[in-house]
């Protein structure tokens, strides 16, 4: 509403300026520009549909042999891909899907509270200079390519964190999640999830910051005037307003974590199970990293099976986004 109200005077202004032209000229050139822009905007909008349709079509067509090919071929391709562990597609994609979801979920679990904390610090606590600096650092971090995070993880984090995980397993090992033996070097699900968390924090933060900054001033001042503390103000006047935005920010981060390939490929020692032992080596693998590591040596049927796992990842990402939309839809209608 606000935007519409403010755009009105601008329009008036423009029509005043062009009043020196004849009426017909003005409307004609205006119409032409309008039409061109309309076409451009429509094309841009349609391109995204075409791209999506093309990707979907590619995935389905190339994955088709993995479902329709001769059973013997399919079984032998999966046998080769899994090192003789499984011969059915569901048994192959199941552990991979589990690994993808568990790693992305864990990293979001770590990243979300930190990101919201940073966002609130920038918008509500930090002095102006510090908050500008922090904002630009966050944007800088968001631009670092994942291969750099992968290298940092594989070369620095893995050797450095091995001792810490051993300590965790020693004192918290009675919780099945943290039971040993701890992987040495620590190329485990826990390490990957941490590196991915560092990777998605800037993405979630930069969206969350913009949303928290937009929380209505008047309501916050009203809360303060009623004697609320700063935390109470944030809880009453900022978080409810930002809720749906925070959820879509975290979905953006989750999307990146779900599809992350390079960092996982370089850090994780992959495995093939439904294990929740986060500190052990060779328990899980993600779909994206699995495609990257198996694709080069795969034969035609192997490639089809790998693309079929890619199709599953595609559907899962879709599903996650859909659920997130439902949640945010409910949140904002309240």
């Amino acid at each position: 509403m606000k935007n519409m109200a403010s755009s009105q005077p601008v329009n008036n202004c423009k029509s005043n300026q062009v009043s020196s032209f004849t009426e017909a000229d003005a409307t004609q050139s205006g119409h032409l520009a309008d039409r061109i822009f309309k076409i451009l905007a429509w094309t841009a909008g349609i391109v995204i549909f075409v791209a999506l349709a093309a990707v979907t079509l590619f995935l389905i067509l190339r994955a088709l042999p993995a479902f329709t090919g001769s059973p013997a071929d399919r079984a032998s391709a999966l046998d080769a891909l899994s090192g003789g562990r499984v011969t059915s597609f569901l048994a192959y994609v199941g552990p991979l899907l589990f690994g993808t979801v568990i790693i992305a979920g864990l990293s979001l679990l770590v990243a979300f509270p930190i990101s919201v904390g940073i966002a609130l610090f920038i918008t509500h606590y930090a002095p102006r200079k510090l908050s500008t600096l922090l904002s630009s650092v966050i944007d800088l971090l968001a631009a670092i390519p994942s291969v750099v995070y992968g290298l940092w993880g594989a070369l620095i984090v893995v050797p450095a964190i091995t001792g810490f995980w051993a300590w965790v397993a020693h004192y918290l090992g009675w919780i099945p999640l943290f039971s040993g033996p701890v992987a040495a070097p620590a190329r485990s699900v826990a390490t990957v999830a941490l590196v991915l968390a560092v990777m998605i924090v800037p993405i979630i933060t930069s969206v969350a910051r913009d949303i928290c900054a937009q929380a209505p001033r008047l309501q916050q001042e009203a809360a303060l005037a009623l004697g609320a503390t700063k935390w109470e103000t944030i809880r009453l006047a900022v978080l409810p307003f930002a809720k749906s935005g925070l959820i879509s920010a975290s979905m953006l981060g989750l999307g990146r974590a779900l599809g992350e390939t390079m960092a996982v490929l370089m850090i994780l020692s992959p495995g093939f199970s439904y294990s929740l032992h986060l500190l052990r080596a060779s328990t899980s693998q993600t779909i994206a990293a699995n495609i990257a590591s198996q694709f080069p040596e795969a034969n035609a049927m192997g490639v089809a099976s790998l693309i079929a796992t890619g199709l599953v990842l595609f559907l899962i990402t879709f599903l996650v986004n859909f659920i997130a939309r439902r949640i945010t839809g409910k949140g904002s209608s309240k």
Partner: protein
Amino acid sequence: MHKNAFARGAAFVLALTISVGLAACGDNQPVPQHNSQGQVETESGHIVGEFAGSGASSQQSANEAWIAGFQYRHTGARISYDPAGSGAGVTAFLNGSVIWAGTDEPLSDDQVEQSKSVCAGSSAFELPVYVTPIALAYNLPQAGLNKPNRHLNMDPVTIAQIFQGQITRWNDRRLAELNPDVELPDLAITVIHRSDKSGTTKSLLKYMEASAGPAWPYQPGQNWPNDIGQGAKGTAGLVMTLTQAEGTFGYADVAQTNGLGTVAVRVGSSYVPATEQTAAAMLEHKVTFKPQGANSLRKVLDVDYATNKAGTYPILLISYDVVCKAYRNDANGKKADFAKSWLTYLESDSGQQQSASNAGSVPLSSNIRQGFAHSVREIGVA
């Protein structure tokens, strides 16, 4: 040790990020040579044009060396090799998009049949071009065992037990018995295997199957068959992981295991380390051509992994080049001409020397080279 880990890391970066780019860097300018009359002479061969190959990444450094050597002889030729992997290379070859494919795996019957769509008159065939010993490597620097001349002794059954998680510590009685004069540390063994599909893994597993008998229950394949220890991507990634922790145990091309200790494996009644000499002896005495049909040009090697002959190191990786006798859509026989010159060069003394000094491969034995040359002679012959 930390420094070493970083050096490995740097190698890992190189391998991962510019591996494709490197293949195109064979543009080494030939060095002009002065002949006896003092004139500058560039040996200019007759091969002119651009030629592409694709396939096994194991052959990558050998191919870089060969491309440099070949282009030095044929200054008009521009050759590229895309180390996309054996499977991708053979697929590209069967699509007709490359002239030759490098592969760690001999062609399947299906692939031979399919090749009739790119080869004129006959089907494609493969020739062994690259052989390298695979070492079992470990990282035990604190115990002083990472020296080039110290080798831990192991027999196939012990190796099978380590790879299956039945021997989990370095000072296990079964290891100590094989190494009476070595003080083994009280450390956990972390097995590191390849996480990607790999011909290196398959060669090792074939050796395990042939030599360890019932102690090794798995079928050989390109993927590691169990979840013991850790997986790492590519030879560079595996070697980097080996150096990142004390007590790791894995396998890689001998040329890549500098700074790590390597195992001498039991062959007959002695222990044989992985060296160029022991691998060459193996190639000479225990590797033969698989019998093929009467008119077949295919030269597939059969390795006697269960060898008992003293001084032969049994774990070899063999990589092939796949070509056609004649190509479809080949104006003036240019492709066949290239394939013939390329393989002739690979088989020559200087070609073999080039890959041995640059990629650590084992020169082919005279017996293999004879069979090789026999097939090459047929290329382009109507």
